[in-house]
């Protein structure tokens, strides 16, 4: 009786592991759980001396448990515990009106607008550069070294110069940030699209030649569609870089709004929890943007008959 019940329950116990949701999420949940454990341990270890110092200054007696509990809720911890970050993030998102200066939604929206404009500018510039490089050997030789050089100067050094120069000609606010963002994001698109525009097979190019197609027709009917997978791969890289560019651009301007401004303010006042919450907001934003590009890629892929 019992043995038959055990024999029956055994496959059932294994069954949940085969469940599609379990198959899909078990690896992710495991990794996240492991990270949380490591994070908590690190938070205890890093904040320990801070909390102990606090107790000793007040000459209050303390137990080990109180000490550990203290590391979990310090006001300005060296490393905030995950629940503190989550709390601050949720509070920043839901705790204020979306246009309040303490709302993370407000700051994210400011950064997002600069990111999207910068991304659009960068994508346009990147594709235009790739087109001219593919169509002219002279341009390839003259432009390519400069394009590569442009990325060798750290953007942290360049950003203030951009802001000052653009400010001097009367450009302020959104546009300078977008230009810095575009300056970073055009690069992967140029590199990817040069590769993509050159990706058609020689046979396909020969075919176009036998039909005496114009170079414009070769571009629209062959090179552009062939470059689509390259375009989306580089757009995914570019959109995260656009976000980084926009955040970095907010640092030297002393901007009052934006994720970068939140980071800066947080570091001025030692508000580590606020810094981490802003970082989480940036990560959420980046994931959302990449997901959007991925969605566009799937839609285009379906129209182009890509094998599922």
């Amino acid at each position: 009786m019992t043995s038959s019940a055990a024999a029956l329950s055994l496959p059932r116990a294994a069954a949940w592991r085969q469940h599609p949701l379990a198959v899909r999420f078990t690896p992710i949940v495991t990794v996240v759980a492991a990270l949380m454990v490591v994070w908590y341990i690190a938070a205890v270890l890093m904040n320990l001396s801070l909390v102990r110092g606090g107790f000793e200054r007040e000459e209050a007696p303390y137990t080990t448990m109180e000490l550990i509990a203290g590391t979990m809720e310090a006001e300005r911890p060296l490393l905030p515990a995950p629940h503190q970050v989550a709390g601050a993030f949720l509070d920043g998102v839901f705790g204020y009106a979306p246009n309040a200066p303490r709302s993370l939604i407000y700051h994210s929206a400011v950064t997002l607008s600069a990111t999207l404009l910068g991304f659009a500018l960068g994508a346009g510039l990147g594709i235009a550069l790739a087109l001219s490089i593919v169509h002219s050997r002279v341009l390839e030789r003259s432009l390519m070294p400069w394009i590569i050089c442009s990325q060798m100067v750290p953007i942290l050094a360049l950003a203030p110069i951009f802001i000052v120069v653009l400010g001097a000609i009367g450009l302020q606010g959104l546009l300078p940030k977008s230009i810095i963002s575009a300056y970073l994001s055009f690069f992967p698109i140029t590199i990817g699209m040069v590769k993509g525009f050159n990706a058609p097979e020689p046979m396909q190019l020969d075919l176009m030649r036998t039909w005496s197609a114009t170079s414009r027709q070769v571009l629209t009917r062959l090179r552009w569609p062939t470059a689509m997978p390259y375009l989306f791969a580089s757009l995914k890289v570019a959109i995260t870089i656009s976000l980084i560019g926009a955040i970095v651009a907010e640092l030297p301007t002393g901007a009052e709004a934006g994720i970068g401004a939140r980071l800066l303010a947080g570091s001025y006042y030692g508000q580590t929890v606020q810094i981490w919450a802003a970082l989480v907001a940036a990560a959420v934003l980046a994931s959302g943007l990449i997901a959007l590009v991925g969605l566009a890629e799937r839609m285009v892929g379906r129209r182009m008959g890509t094998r599922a």
Partner: protein
Amino acid sequence: MNIVTDATAIANPSSRRIAVDVAEVSLTFDTADGKVEALSDVSLQIAAGEFVSFIGPSGCGKTTMLRVIADLQQPTSGHLSVNGMTAEQARLARAYGYVFQAPALFPWRTIEANLKLPLQIMGYSESDQTILAKRYLELVNLTGFARKFPWQLSGGMQQRVSIARALSFDPALLLMDEPFGALDEIVRDHLNAQLLELWGKTNKTVLFVTHSIPEAVFLSTKIVVMSPRPGRIIDIIDCNFPRDRTLEIRETPEFMAIAQRVRTGLRAGHSYDE
């Protein structure tokens, strides 16, 4: 070598016009290992309506020959006329359809859209494109596959689409570079029979590069045997089976005799000595 075409060699007497005239054409490639003579002093005349096969081992210049006629490559010396024009004029006039070793379909286009591509490029009207795509899909027995994407078709079907695509704008000349080389023998036999039927229906001049002796003998009115290093013509064999031949003729003594002559020619070229 200059061949004066025997009038009886051509089934259709009205097609005695010269479609392709190659006169003393040579082509030398500059490669990293030095100069390679791909074609050496090749002369050949092909009358309209003929089906001419080029056969020879790899590297004998048969593909290069076709590419020169198609103006995909320029000869180092010699003269070339295609339908009475230079090769470049003929290309610009869209005088020929070219079928490559691989189907080279555009994977993001449906079969119908692939067929329409040359027509779009040549500026046919939307309605003409649709009519022609339908007609030529029917010609290669692929009606019903119009909405499929290339990867949903077998290799043989894809190659049929590429043949339909080459025919769709009704060029007088069809250049085929080992179109069935990548296919298995059964599919190949089937497509050979279909191609012959197509040729009968459309009355085009076909230049056909192949590795296969039976294929060449079965399809051709004329077989050009080539040898490598340097690429040159070593024999031109007339091959006058009736136009409505079937695969069974491959068992006849006449067929065997021609195949034997091709084989002898290939051997005489010392093609396999190295």
